[in-house]
């Protein structure tokens, strides 16, 4: 039997003026789970985090945190709930240690407050900068301090809004390891990120939001199953002409790949016809390789023009990740 949810947002809607920031959004995160929250800019991820942390009131829907109904007007956050949205901010004229000590006081910590503060600073790698005024901190240091502020609450439910966006690779790795440790210790972590590799590495389950609507909710494996067409990496003698030809072929979508060549999404019959059409047009196929669908490509498919507002993606993809030998060289 699954553990009761640590975080439950049911039918949450939020409107800013004429714009639906969230429209009947559901999200459930369970203890011990790292749950990814994905979506393009303006999709509603941060708004959902704000609602979850009691910073914004939903127009409708219910939010439950660790089994308690959230009512920002009546009570503060339940103990064990922590997190930050956007870039964490602190009083610039106070040191990191003093900032955390004040926040710990607001949490009602009396005894061991200083030990808790020092421990949190050490966990995020800021022990050496504890007595430096925050005005001298880089964005990455502030981000780590934000995480330290969250750790002070001994989180059993943690919301992290792009926690590694300003960090160097080593610091980002440390923060990811920390998030993993917290989840392993039983905390539910809801992580919003633009870094698909990060989400893929950390999160077993995810919710994809676009224009305030949930377009996918489930495991990463389920998302892969819903991919519409196999993905191929194609190298040709004339990529631009190959893209133009793809536009004219039904069932074929081609775009420039980040690492060079083209990413082509197509079923096998359509792909055969496309390769023949390339040959007839005098475009040589130098390599064709079947690729595992990256989370990024699936994300773009869900949130791009073709994915938005359409029926769920059909046809589970078979044997994904199987590489096909080059057919031409």
């Amino acid at each position, binding site marked *: 039997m699954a553990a009761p949810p640590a975080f439950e947002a049911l039918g949450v809607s939020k409107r*800013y003026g004429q714009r639906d*920031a969230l429209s009947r959004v559901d999200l459930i995160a369970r203890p011990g789970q790292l749950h990814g929250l994905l979506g393009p800019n303006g999709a509603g991820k*941060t*708004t959902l985090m*704000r609602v979850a*942390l*009691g*910073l*914004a*009131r939903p127009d409708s829907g219910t939010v439950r945190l660790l089994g308690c109904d959230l009512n*920002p*007007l*009546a*009570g*503060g*956050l339940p*103990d064990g709930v*922590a*997190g*930050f*949205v*956007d*870039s*964490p*901010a*602190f*009083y*610039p*004229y*106070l040191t990191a240690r*003093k900032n955390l000590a*004040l*926040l710990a*006081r*607001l*949490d*009602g910590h009396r005894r061991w407050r200083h030990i808790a503060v020092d421990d949190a600073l050490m966990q995020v790698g800021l022990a050496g900068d504890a007595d430096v005024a925050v005005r001298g901190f880089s964005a990455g240091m502030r981000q780590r301090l*934000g995480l330290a*502020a969250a750790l002070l*609450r001994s989180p059993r439910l943690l919301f992290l809004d792009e926690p590694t966006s300003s960090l160097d690779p080593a610091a980002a790795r440390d923060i990811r390891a920390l998030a993993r440790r917290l989840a392993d210790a039983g905390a539910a972590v809801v992580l919003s990120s633009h870094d698909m590799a990060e989400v893929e590495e950390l999160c077993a389950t995810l919710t994809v939001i676009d224009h305030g609507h949930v377009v996918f909710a489930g495991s990463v494996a389920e998302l892969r199953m819903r991919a519409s067409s196999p993905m191929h990496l194609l190298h040709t003698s004339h990529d631009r002409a190959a893209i133009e030809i793809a536009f004219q072929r039904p069932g074929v979508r081609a775009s420039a790949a980040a690492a060079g060549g083209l990413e082509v999404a197509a079923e096998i019959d359509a792909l055969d016809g496309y390769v023949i059409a390339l040959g007839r047009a005098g475009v040589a196929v130098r390599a064709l390789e079947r690729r595992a669908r990256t989370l990024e490509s699936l994300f773009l498919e869900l949130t791009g023009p073709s994915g938005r507002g359409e029926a769920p993606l059909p046809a589970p993809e078979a044997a994904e990740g199987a590489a096909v030998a080059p057919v031409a060289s």
Partner: protein
Amino acid sequence: MRMGRWLTVTSVECAKVSAQAVARIALALSIAGPFAFAAAMRVQTSVPADTLFGRSVTESGFAIPLVILGFAALWAFPVLTSVVGGDLFSSEDRHGTWSSVLTRSCTRGEIFAGKVITALAFATVAVSVLAASSVAAGVIVVGQRPLVDLSGVLREPAEALTRVVLAWATALPPALGFTAMAVLASIATRSSAAGIGLPVVIGLAMQLCTLLDGPEAIRRLLLTASFGAWHGLLAEPPYYRPLIHGTIVSSAYVAVCLTLAYRLLQRRDIGG
């Protein structure tokens, strides 16, 4: 609302205020200003004869705090009492720290109560420091001599001191009214400049209104009118009606401004 929690918020806010230069500068000026004024009165040949007790500033040290009290009502009280109240809430917007503060265990109501108590406490301390410094400056620089009151009665030093202290105490209610106004401006505009500046501008506008030949009822509703309520304490027989009226008007300003400010903060979405 849990009392322990808003006391905690108050202690946190006091720690933040004490770390800020502007609060310390305001208090330092409150201490140094009266001594500078008393010293200037001592060395110059003319006196501010057109102000209440201005003629007596070289004759009795107790006239110095009363002249300063009259002068402070013009603009010093609105500035002094808004320096913290007008910045406590908007500084969270300026630093972007609302989301850090409101994601702890305290409710918005407790945060509001703690901040308001801090603002009112600072205003009280600032007025008290200015009062104490004014009395000390008068006594030290000019001397502890009897004071002739508004009715021409000579008040012995002990009685004069009591009346001067009471006169300063009557300035507290309207000063707290200006603090509440600063809190409202700070929350409504999310700007410290407006939080501190608006009460000063409104105070000056009220002073101008008292000069106009408008209805008496409206003039009595102006917060600045309460600053003159102490005159009755320096008359023989003393009269208290303006004092009672001013206290009621000031309390109404505090209640209305803080209620509006609380509602604005409760309804506000942070960010987005």
